[in-house]
């Protein structure tokens, strides 16, 4: 019986793809993540929801090590991220190795964080050219393709200051895609946008989802979570309090805490 259980768990894709075990993150005395177990399988679209301060952004930032975890482990395709064993002590990896491991992930921020001194195209090419050491003329075509994929082929030579919020966020998505990440992480990608610009960004994310990109999206857009996500995760107080298919979460199947959160959004 045990052997059978072990077998199925080994075959389960989640253990081979992104897997977080007992991840703890503290900011001073505040525990942002409290021994969180979380995994993502290939091609999955996970929507993270929850009240502000519940740790969902922190969890996302821990995945690509923008925040370094204090305890626990993260593995990606069997590779331990961020730490190694030295004898019996677990120590953080060299910065250089961290930089290499971060390339598995593409990140899109709430505040865009485009490079203001580069044009839209140069922002997209920043990854391949500065990090990948490729020549600009060799990757130009790919930059153009990525910008056209987010519907901004005609804004290529504009500086971020000349773009609207929605356009900036779409350039940021193209910039993240330029490094060919295996997982895309979205940290409240539409929270800083004017309401009428939200959909142009969500449409791009939706298209990525249809193309089979593995994604983790922290969002407050419940409609988006319901339609696009393959799994919804609710966080509260640094813990995952509920998770399941959107149909389960949004059609009243969740825990009490989940129902309370969803009803607070409706009022």
């Amino acid at each position, binding site marked *: 019986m045990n052997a059978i259980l072990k077998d199925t768990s080994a075959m389960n894709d989640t253990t081979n793809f992104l897997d977080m075990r007992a991840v703890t993150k503290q900011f001073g005395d505040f525990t942002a993540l409290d021994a969180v177990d979380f995994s993502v399988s290939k091609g999955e679209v996970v929507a993270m929801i929850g009240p502000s301060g519940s740790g969902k952004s922190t969890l996302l930032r821990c995945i690509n090590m923008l925040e370094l975890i204090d305890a626990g482990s993260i593995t990606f395709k069997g590779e331990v991220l961020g730490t190694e064993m030295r004898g019996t002590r677990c120590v953080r990896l060299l910065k250089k190795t961290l*930089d290499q491991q971060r*390339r598995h992930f*593409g990140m899109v921020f709430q505040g865009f964080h485009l*490079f203001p001194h580069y*044009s839209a195209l140069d922002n997209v090419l*920043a*990854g391949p050219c500065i*990090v990948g050491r490729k020549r600009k003329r060799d990757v130009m075509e790919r930059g153009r393709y990525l910008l056209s994929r987010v519907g901004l082929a005609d804004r290529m030579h504009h500086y971020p200051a000349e773009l609207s919020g929605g356009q900036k966020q779409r350039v940021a998505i193209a910039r993240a895609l*330029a490094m060919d990440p295996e997982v895309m992480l979205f940290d409240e990608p539409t929270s800083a946008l004017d309401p009428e610009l939200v959909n142009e960004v969500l449409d791009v994310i939706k298209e990525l989802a249809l193309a089979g990109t593995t994604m983790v999206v922290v969002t407050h857009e419940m409609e988006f979570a319901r339609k696009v996500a393959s799994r919804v995760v609710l966080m509260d107080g640094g813990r995952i309090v509920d998770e399941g298919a959107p149909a389960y979460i949004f059609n009243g199947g969740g825990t009490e805490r989940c129902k309370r959160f969803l009803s607070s959004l409706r009022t």
Partner: protein
Amino acid sequence: MDIEARKDLQDPAVFFAETPLTRRHKGEPNRPGARQQPASPRIHARPKKSDWFWYAMLLVVVVLFVELVIYNPRWQWDIVAHYLFNKRVMKGLGNTLLLTVLSSALGLCFGVVIAACRMADNAVLRTAGYVYIWIIRATPPLAMLLFLFFLSALIPRIYLPLPLLHANLFDIDTNQVISRFSAAVIGLAMYLGGYSAEIFRGGVSAVDRGQREACKAIGMSDFRTMWHVVMPQAVRIIIPPLANELITMFKNTSLVTVIGYVELLTTVQLIYATNFETIPLLTVACIWYLALTSLAMAAQSLLERHFRKGVQT
């Protein structure tokens, strides 16, 4: 109704959008000869009565300047003109410029290193940077120059003993290193280094943290992040205070007179010590300081314009 319309126009964006001039710039057809008439009368700033007072004051200042400076025989403008391009003055000016350029270059290098120390992860480096800045801030530059010049009295030989081996890694006579000139360059550079380090640090930390996170997220190394993303943005913030510091430095070169190095101000002092034309010769020095500072300020505004690219205002 009337008030409502004015409130609307108080918003500059609305005001300029409603003005035909900008409409023409946006590419609306503008037939030559057919000037577009604004729909409603253009609104002007309200004239202030106090403006007339200030214009009157300006007149008073101009009159005083002409009377007390230009037509004042005691300024002795003929002597000023005679000494303005005097050979000794030129040599002094050359020395001032040489001193400024060398100690600025060295000082900015110090500044970068110390700023890097101040922002380092390592506690030893951080403390070292902090202590350096503390000492520089606490010491008057005059005292610093004198200390350096008389260093040989304090430390006659500079050497690094190798314990147990009974030998020295190097051993130099201090007086070989410290001349009037090198003491001046090193002293001024140390001073600039301490102050510019804080300016660099301020500029770097003023760049949005998100920029560094965005770089990290695409796997960029810290060095490339600094070089390609942080520095181009920090330079814009750094230029005004740094230009200030460099111009101060240019005038601080006159402090080296205490260790007897002959630069511009010392030169004119030496000249008026013999011919007693104190005021005209000080004026000569001031005119040169003024001229070169103006050049530096022009260069500053050109630089500022260059680095304004893509910046939201």
